[in-house]
């Protein structure tokens, strides 16, 4: 059942591009893998493409488990996100130059707070999701270490979204390190947002804010 797209639009704490990235994430994690075209089929066997397809399939299984409470679904999605993304890499990138000047204790506290924050933001948005379709369109190498997997997300509520997943494959362990929607990178967007917070606050201030956001309690019965 499709919900109105309105809930993703309009006033929100996230910049517009960030919302579209959330949509792409939803799609990949909740999608029924679409039947790829003959051309797409030849490239969809790469390790990186398989990684994204598998993540999608496992997410569907979690979301469709009947009788599972919302918090339990969110917890399963968290686990998939932890396994699918290289959170440490993303966290370091997003902090930019502030990472190098932070003390080891600050680095560890930041990393803990950052991954909790990202997991909460995405799992709480995905947990109630019902379904869109995703097809792997193509896959190409990017630099020495990465593969970009291009996907197309078809949705009933609007035009298709083109999402590119940057996957780093090390030791046969593929991990997503970035998502770009319409060419705009999630990691870069997040880095800009943190940079503007860090202009007015110390690193400890940023960590405190991330913590406070994830410390909030869920709905109560």
């Amino acid at each position, binding site marked *: 059942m499709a*919900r*109105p797209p*309105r*809930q*993703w*639009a*309009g*006033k*929100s*704490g*996230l910049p517009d591009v960030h919302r579209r990235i959330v949509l792409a994430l939803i799609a990949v994690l909740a999608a029924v893998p679409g039947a790829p075209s003959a051309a797409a089929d030849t490239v969809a066997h790469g390790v990186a493409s398989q990684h994204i397809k598998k993540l999608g399939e496992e997410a569907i299984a979690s979301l469709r488990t009947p009788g599972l*409470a*919302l918090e339990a*679904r969110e917890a399963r999605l968290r686990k998939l996100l*932890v*396994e699918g993304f290289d*959170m*440490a890499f993303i966290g370091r990138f997003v902090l930019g130059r502030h990472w190098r000047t932070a003390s080891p204790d600050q680095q*560890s506290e930041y*990393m*803990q707070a950052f*991954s909790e924050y990202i997991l909460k933001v995405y799992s*709480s*948005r995905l*947990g*109630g*999701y*019902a379904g869109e379709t995703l097809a792997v369109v193509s896959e190409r190498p990017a630099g020495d270490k990465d593969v970009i997997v291009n996907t197309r997300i078809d949705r009933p509520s609007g035009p298709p979204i083109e999402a590119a997943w940057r996957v780093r494959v090390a030791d046969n362990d593929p991990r997503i390190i970035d998502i770009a929607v319409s060419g705009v990178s999630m990691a870069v967007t997040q880095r800009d947002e943190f940079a503007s917070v860090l202009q007015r606050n110390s690193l*400890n201030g940023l960590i*405190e*804010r991330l*913590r*406070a*956001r994830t*410390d*909030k*309690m*869920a*709905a*109560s*019965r």
Partner: protein
Amino acid sequence: MTGVRVPRRLTAALALALLAASPARADFEAGWQAYQRGDFAAALAAWRPLAAAGDARATYNLGVLYDEGKGVVRDDAKAVDLWRQAADKGFAPAQHNLANSLIAGDGVAADYREALAWMHRAADQGLARSQYTLGKMYAYGLGVARDPAQAVGWIRKAADSGDVRAQYNLGKMYRDGEGVAHDLGQSASWFRRAAERGYAQAQAALARRYAAGEGVARDPVQAMMWTVLAARQGLERADAQRRAFAAQMSPDDIAQAEKLADRWRPRP
């Protein structure tokens, strides 16, 4: 029926009260079921009238929907407004969330002093999560002068109630002698309590206690088992630690530790 005899008039009054309360209760429950299904629009529709009638829990839940953008356009200021209403009625989770919005500056100007006051009220009602956060506010000096002894006091309350982050932090405080006398035995024992419940940070910390023989008898196999468990949860630090330990262990010991980790189950 045998047993306690209830005065007839009281029974009648009870029945009346239940009757009066049940439609609201049924509406609340319908909202809860919708929320669990992920039908947030229906949850919103069920809880909104209850909130308008002054039900603190429904008001609080509406705030959660606005805060997370579920079934509604995300609106931090609206969430703060709703939580403040429920907090004024004494609803502890609303006090807790309002305090966090005031710390983060979400939908309201950041104000540590007011945040501290609300966190205190929730902590006084026995909410372990608030006791922990209040302890951290004293530890960092947020909204109040830094006070390590107060920090330990509140974090200990939360740890005693079973909050794993508090148990882990208490372990660190004993280890570092921060606000409390340095005590490696106590430190290891608090790390263990959180580790046994599956908290990755505590598992990695307990592993280091076993590796160094600090507060526990040195035991490389136990050290390896706990660090493997933490690494499996994606804790990067534990992964590095696992490689360092492995370099100094026999293949047999490593295999035994991994077998122990496979069999390990978190304590509920």
